[in-house]
C-alpha cells in the first residue's frame, strides 16, 4: 500500500474478523483484566477501612489539598495525551512530540508527589507495617504508582519515537494503544482518590482510643 492510500482513510480498515485491530482489542481485554486486579485491591481497602488498631489514622495524616493537586496534574496529563495523539494523527510531528513529552513530565510530577507523600508519611510514623491502613494504603497506591511508572516509560519511548520519526501518522495506532492504557490508569486513580482521600479522610481512631499524632 502506498503512503497516499494510507492517508486517505483516517482509520485503516483492518483485515480481521471483527474489523478491529488485534492489538487494540488485546489492550481492551487487558484493561478488563486490570480492572479485576485493581478491583480486588480496592475491595480489600474498603473491607479494612476503619479497622486499624493503632495510629496514625487517615484523618491524622492524609493531606487532601496536596493530593488534589497531584490528582489535577494526572488529569491534565490525559488531556495532553489526547492532544499528542491528535497531532501525531495529523502528522504534525513537533507538536505531537511536545504533547507526548508533556504527558511524560506530568506523569513524572505525579510520581514525585507520590514519592514525597510516601516519605512524609514514613516520617510521621506510617509505613506498610504500622497498621492495616498503612498496609492497604501503601500497597494499593504503590501498585497504582507502578502502573504510572510503566506508563511514563512507555510514553517516553513514544516521545522518542515521534521525535525520530519512527512514530508517524500511519502507525499512530501504537500511540493510541499506549493512550488507552494511560487513560485507564488515570481513571483508576480517580477511583482511588475518591475511596481513600475523599471517603475515608475523616476516618479517625476507633471509639475510646485517643489520637496518636500530636501536632
Amino acid at each position, binding site marked *: 500500500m502506498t503512503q497516499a492510500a494510507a492517508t486517505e482513510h483516517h482509520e485503516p480498515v483492518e483485515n480481521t474478523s471483527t474489523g478491529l485491530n*488485534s492489538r487494540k482489542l488485546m489492550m481492551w481485554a487487558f484493561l478488563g483484566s486490570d480492572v479485576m*486486579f485493581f478491583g480486588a485491591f480496592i475491595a480489600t481497602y474498603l473491607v479494612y477501612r476503619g479497622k486499624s488498631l493503632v495510629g496514625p489514622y487517615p484523618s491524622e495524616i492524609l493531606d487532601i489539598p496536596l493530593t488534589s493537586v497531584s490528582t489535577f496534574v494526572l488529569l491534565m496529563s490525559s488531556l495532553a495525551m489526547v492532544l499528542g495523539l491528535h497531532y501525531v494523527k495529523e502528522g504534525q510531528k513537533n507538536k505531537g512530540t511536545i504533547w507526548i513529552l508533556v504527558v511524560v513530565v506530568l506523569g513524572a510530577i505525579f510520581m514525585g508527589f507520590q514519592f514525597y507523600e510516601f516519605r512524609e508519611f514514613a516520617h510521621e510514623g506510617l509505613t506498610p507495617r504500622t497498621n492495616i491502613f498503612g498496609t492497604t494504603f501503601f500497597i494499593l497506591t504503590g501498585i497504582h504508582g507502578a502502573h504510572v511508572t510503566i506508563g511514563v516509560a512507555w510514553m517516553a519511548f513514544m516521545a522518542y519515537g515521534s521525535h*525520530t520519526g519512527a512514530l508517524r501518522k500511519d502507525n499512530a495506532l501504537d500511540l493510541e494503544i499506549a493512550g488507552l492504557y494511560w487513560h485507564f490508569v488515570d481513571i483508576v486513580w480517580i477511583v482511588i482518590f475518591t475511596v481513600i482521600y475523599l471517603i475515608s479522610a475523616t476516618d479517625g481512631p476507633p471509639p475510646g482510643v485517643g489520637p496518636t499524632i500530636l501536632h
Partner: protein
Amino acid sequence: MTTKSLKFPQAFPRPKSATGIWSWIGTVDHKRIGTMYGIVSFIWFLVGGLEALLMRAQLASAENDLIGPEAFNQLFTMHGTTMVFLVIMPLSAAFFNWLIPLQIGARDVAFPRLNALSFWIFLFGSILINFSWVTGDAPNGGWFGYAPNSGTTFNPGLGMTYWVVGLNVLGVASIAAGLNFIVTILNMRAPGMDMFKIPIFTWMTLITSVLIVLAMPVLAVAGIQLMTDRVYGTHFFNSLGGGDPVMWQHIFWLFGHPEVYILILPAMGIVSEVLPTFARKPLFGYPFVVFAGAVIAFMGWFVWSHHMFTVGLGPAANTAFSISTMLIAVPTGVKIFNWLGTLWGGNIRLNTPMLFSISFIAMFTIGGLSGVMHASPPTDAQQQDTYFIVAHFHYVLVGGALLGIFSGIYFWWPKFTGYFLNEKLGIANWALMMIGFNLQFAPMHWLGMDGMPRRIYTYAENMGWEGSNLAASIGGLILGIGILVFIFNVFYSKMNKVMAGDDPWDGRTLEWATSSPPPVHDFDVIPQVQYRDDFWFKKYPETISEYYHDDHDQAVPSGAQLDDEVEEALPVVSGGSDDHGHGAIHLPDMSYYPFILSVGIAILGAGFITNTYVVGAGVPFILWGLLGWSMEPVNDPE
C-alpha cells in the same frame, strides 16, 4: 519503504533454522508451543502422580509411619498445586495452542511471540515452585494456602513464599495466553466463519480464556498480599495488625471457583467434539452448550462462599450462596443432556476417544451430584474438610477434566503426529484408569461421611477406615499402572506406526481438512466456511438438506438464513492470501526475546523469595527482552 523504525542492537542473530535447540527456543509456531506445553505438563503430571502415590502409601494402613506429618503436608500441598496449575491448566493450553488456529482456519495465533512468552514463563514458574523440593522446604499450607497458617507466624520457612511467588509467575503466563486466545478467536476466523459457526471446542476455549483473564488477577492480588505479609511484614491477613485471615478465604475462592470452571470447560469442549464425531451426528443443541458455558462462566463469580459455609458468615450469606450454588448446577446439567442427546440415535463407534468421553459424562455426573449435596449448608457442615469433599473434586477433576483430556489426546494424536495411538493399548489404558480411579475415589465418599478428615497423615486403628483406605491405595496403584500403559502406548505407537491420513475419524471440523501433521503454515489455502461443521458438509453435501430446512430445529448446524449465505459465500478465496497481501504465505519469524523476557521474570520471582539484589538482576533481562521485542519487526525485511 522509506519510513524509519527504531532499531535495537541484536546480541544474537535472529534464529532461522528449523531444527536444533534454537529452533525450539526461538519458535513462535503454535504447534511447537503446544507440543512443549504438552510435554512439560505431562512431566509434572508424573511428578504430581508420584506425590499422590506416596500419600496413598502412607494412608494404606492405620497408624502407618512411612511418611511423617511435615512431609505429608508438603505432599498434599504440592500435589494439589501441581495438578491444578501445572497439569490440567497447561494441558488444556496445549490443546488451545494446537487446535485453535486449526479449528478456525488460521495460520497462527494473533500474537505468536506472546504465545511463546506464555510458555516460557509457565516453564520457569513451574520449575521455581518445584525448586522448593530441592531446598527441602516445600510449601505445606494446602493448595488453597489458608491464612493464618500460610503466614510467617505459623509457617516461618521459605516454602509458602515459593508457593505464592511461583503462582504469581504462573499467573502472568496464564493471563498472557488468555488474552492471546481471546483475540485469536475473535479476530482470526476464516472467512465466513461467524461466531455461531466456530467449533464448540473453540467456544469453550474462548469462555475459558475470558475466565482466565478475569480470575487470575484476583489470585495475583491474593498472592501479592500474602507475599508482602510474608516478606515485608504487612498485615493483610494478620489479626494482630488489624487484618483478617478470613479475607484470604474470600479472595482466594473468588478466584477459586471460576478456576474450577477454567479446569473443566476445556474438557467439556473436547468431549463435545468427540461425541458428535463418534456418534456421526451434529452436537445436539449447539447454542445451548454455548450459552450454558457462558452462563456457568458468569454465575461462577457468585458462588465462592460455598467453600466457606462453616466459617460462620451467618445464615443470610450461607443461604444466598447455597441458592446460587444450586442454580449453577442447572446449566451444568443442561450440558449433560446435550451430550446424551448427541448420543441418542447416533451411529456410535466405540473407539478409545469415545470410551473416554462417555466415561467423562458418567464420572462428571457423579461429581456434580455430590457437589449439589454440599451446596446445602447443613449437609456441608457434615462434609466440609472430610474425604467426601476429596471424592467430589476428584470425580469432577480426574473423572471430568482428566478423562476429557485423555479423550482429546487419543482423538487428536493422529492429527498431531500423523499416526494413531494403538487401540488395544488405548482400551487397556482406559480400563485400568477407570477401575483404578473408581476404586480409589468411590470409597472416599463413605470415608468422608463417616467423618474421616482430609489432610491427616494417619488415623487410628479402631475407626473402621482401614479397608476403604487400603482399597483406595490399591486403586491409586491401578490408576498409576493405567498411566504407565499410556506412556508405553506412546512409544509403542511411535515405533509401530499405523499411519492415519488427514481425516481418520471422519471428522467434522476444519483441523481435519489439512494434512496430518499439518504443515508449518497449517493450511495451503485458507478455507472458506459456509456451515457449522463445514468440513463434514463439504464431504457429505447430500446430508445438508437433512439439517438445513427452514424450521428452527435445534440440531440445525447453522442459522436459518442459510440460503442467502450459500450464494454469497461460493466464490473461493484465492490461495495463500494473508495479512501481508503478498502472493506467498508469510509466517512470523522466530524470536528469542520471549525467552529472554521470561528469564528476567523468573529471576525477578526468585529474587522475591531470596534476596532483593536478585530482583535487580532480573531487571536488565526484562528490559532487554521488552525493548528488543518492541523494536523487532514481526518479519525481517527480505
